[in-house]
């Protein structure tokens, strides 16, 4: 990425592009990954309320998955889930699974 010179940036460290945190893909920080047991999920969306990174995907008011581009793996969703439907698993293991899935 080319960094800008001092004449090209807003003064005072201000960030004037609203919503630009989308460009910051915090999913790369993750060492634990939430895995959801859909048999236990009641779609209460408590996880959506608590997620600090807006990484809980929702469709038609129902839980629809986790956005792994932004999920940092903090585990708050797993801790708050009233039905204990979310388990935090080792990210390296989970990735291996992704790889195996891909091969299938």
């Amino acid at each position, binding site marked *: 990425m080319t960094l800008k*010179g*001092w004449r090209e*940036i807003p*003064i*005072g460290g201000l*960030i004037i592009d*609203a919503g630009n945190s989308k460009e910051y893909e915090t999913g790369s920080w993750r060492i634990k990954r939430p895995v959801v047991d859909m048999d236990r999920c009641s779609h209460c969306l408590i996880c959506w309320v608590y997620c600090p990174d807006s990484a809980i995907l929702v469709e038609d008011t129902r839980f629809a998955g986790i956005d792994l581009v932004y999920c940092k793996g903090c585990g708050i969703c797993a801790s708050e889930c009233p039905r204990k439907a979310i388990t935090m698993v080792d990210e390296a293991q989970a990735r291996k699974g992704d790889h195996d899935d891909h091969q299938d």
Partner: protein
Amino acid sequence: MTTRTEYVKGTPVALDGDRAVAEAMRQVNPDVVAAYPITPQTEIVQRFSEFVANGEVDTEFIAVESEHAAMSACIGASAAGGRAQTATAGAGLALMWEVTWVAAGTRLPIVMHVVNRSLSAPLNILCDHSDSMGVRDAGWIQLYAETIQEAYDDAIQAVRIAEHPDVMLPTMHTLDGFVLGHSLERIEVLPDEVVRGFIGTYNPRYSLLDVDHPVTFGPNDYHDYFFEHRRQQIEGMERALDVIPQIGEEFGALTGRRYGLVEGYQLDDADFAIVALGSINGTVKVVVDELRRQDRKVGLLKVRSFRPFPADKVAQALGGKRAIAVLDRSFSFGAQAHPLFLEVLTALYTHGFTPGMANYVFGLGGRDTLPWQIRQVYDDLAELEGVVSAPVRYLTVRE
């Protein structure tokens, strides 16, 4: 004190420095004032609170729990797009220190009225410039007043300087505690509408309350951009060198009182000059007049703007003088010499001048400085030749 609700242009009134500043604040009618009372600034806050209580201003007055909170509240109010002001002195300014940097780094045009007071210990409530010199590197514009009239005029001009789009830096103007703050002098207070016309309305480019254009204030800023943001602040300071006199001229056209970065007094043909900040300039002028009557070629350079420091103007005014005494009303322990002296010396050296120079520390903790002591400084200068190896002297200190 007689409070006149209607001021008439050209009709002088009697006001002390604190009340004159409070009047300027009333006329500016800031959106937010957050302040904590401290001697010798107390009367500013007290008086302004009365204006708030009486409905004479629309200001949201926040009676904060400390000066750190006062500046923090001003930062929030200014980021929200309001005109924010505070006033402090001495230890209050020291407690504010951390957040003065935040105000400047975030480029918030806050105006602060500083009534100069020494820093403890030993405990002292009287005037020196240790408080404002303690924040000289924080990124604030600093104007120093010689008289109560100047303090009032600076309080108004500070709003325009701070908010100028080329500058966008917080601005403090100072008046010497007690010497000006608690002294009654004859001054002209402008009619309210003249002040309001002069300052206009503040239209911030960015504001936290502008929900259609959301902005983030105060994010993390590391090795990739922090330095660039500092470079921008430096640019703001440099541009203030043009903006301060420009606004001073505009103010002069309105009032007959023109302001620049520095003011020379009997300087053009002078061989020997004194350089100073603040109320001592008046005493020096009296001595200059007296010595001029004896045909001694002496003059004075009053520095109004210490930050930004007008090096070109100072060198232009002092270049070619035989000897120069710089008066400092503050002290930097362990330094080779003191703040104003080092600025003047650097300005002269970088412009190719090497006159004899001496640095007089004076007036610490409210020590009075009398005309005969200033005469002594001019007498010393006449003896001074070339560069001095130990330039610091202490005026009035007992051995």
